[in-house]
């Protein structure tokens, strides 16, 4: 960050300038600045949901796009996520009080044999930011663990993540078990992880492969809306 940037007083910026500055601060992973920005917008009577979507999710979407395009790398994304987490911690209790819109529910977890969760955590955070209720069941999940979680939380979406080429085929094991049990079509199944691609997602019978967290949010919204429309028409 340049000396000039360090002189910026966030409270002196108007709303548009402040949101733009928060995009920059998220990009740079500046947690304290993000927390300050969130508090300033709240003090200006912005509803918590607006702060979340316009300032935080908006900023993280840019981070996600630049990660996908190879401009940012894992460390920068983690710092940005950490900064967003700081802002979310302030907003979460307020969102609960003010009744933010609920878009849908999601159970998300890394598959059996795999302990990598950076991508999964980013998706979970972005989904929460977009108004989804997220039940994160962690790493190394067996079929039984996924099935128990969807039974308990009754989400619209099941999300599975894998980083290893040796563990990604387990997603098919989960989907095949759901087919056997006749519950496959009750859920939207989204899959993601570095070694996956669209072809793999199709081959295992998922509804969609999501290449990054921002795409996951958009895909989830589309599929949930489609599901609701279908239910309304039916």
């Amino acid at each position, binding site marked *: 960050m340049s000396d000039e940037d360090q002189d910026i007083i966030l409270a002196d910026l108007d709303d548009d300038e402040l949101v733009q500055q928060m995009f920059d601060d998220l990009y740079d992973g500046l947690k304290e600045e993000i927390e300050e920005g969130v508090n300033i917008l709240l003090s200006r009577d912005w509803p918590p949901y607006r702060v979340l979507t316009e300032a935080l999710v908006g900023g993280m979407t840019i981070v996600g796009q630049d990660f996908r395009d190879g401009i940012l*790398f*894992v*460390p*920068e994304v*983690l*710092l940005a996520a*950490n900064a967003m987490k700081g802002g979310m911690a302030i907003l979460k209790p307020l969102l609960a009080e003010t009744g933010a819109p609920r878009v849908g529910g999601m159970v998300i977890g890394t598959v059996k*044999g*795999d*302990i*990598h*969760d*950076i991508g999964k955590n980013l998706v979970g955070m972005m989904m929460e930011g977009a108004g989804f209720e997220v039940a994160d069941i962690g*790493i*190394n999940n067996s079929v039984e663990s996924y099935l128990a979680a969807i039974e308990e939380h009754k989400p619209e979406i099941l999300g599975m993540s894998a980083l*290893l*080429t*040796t563990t*990604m085929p387990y997603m098919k094991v989960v989907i095949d078990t759901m087919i056997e049990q006749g519950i496959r079509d009750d859920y939207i199944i989204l899959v993601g992880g570095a*070694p996956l691609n669209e072809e*793999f997602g199709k081959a295992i019978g998922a509804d969609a492969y999501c290449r990054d967290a921002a795409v996951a949010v958009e895909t989830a919204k589309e599929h949930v809306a489609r599901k609701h429309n279908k239910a309304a028409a039916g």
Partner: protein
Amino acid sequence: MLPDDKTLTEQGLAPEGRGRMLLIACGALAREILALKALNNWDYMDLTCLPANLHLYPERITEAVENGVLKHRAAYQNIFVVYADCGTGGLLQAKCAELGVEMVAGPHCYSFFEGNEAFAELDDEITAFYLTDFLVKQFDAFVWKPMGLHKHPELRDMIFGNYTKLVYQAQTLDPALKAKAKNCAERLGLAFEYRFTGYGDLATTLKAQSKKPD
């Protein structure tokens, strides 16, 4: 003469242009392959290495190997690819089959150094972070810096928090490397385990290739 590890990491190794068989290998295996070659007098084997830092970009390995095979195949009777799957998700195997060349069996070098069968039976493999001789030497270039820990050590537990131990699979008996590996484990906040593997399936695989008729 074998170049230094930095060159093997970033540029790889050119073949000498002698011998009837060419090994196309990961730069991280150069030292081990040349040691086996010298030990067994496999003078007819030539070696070229792709940059070891492809390890960080497994999606680039298949194309790089294909280019290597196409570039060199006219000059050798036989080519053998000294990569395992290495995160290519079967794409390297499929490409090698298409090109009519063989490759090392197994998911990655941690597995074939241990021995693929033995590795598959390990219970605690998923929470182990593996280093070989080469990776211990190049820990900063392959782990610490790419993960941003030189600038942001606070990210360590976000990245390595689910691992429980660092396993150093030693190809050679080297107390200094063992001490360095132990220090790597401390830096990552992981327990340390030392396993002397020697060359594992790499030795048996190359031996099998050496017995193939001319």
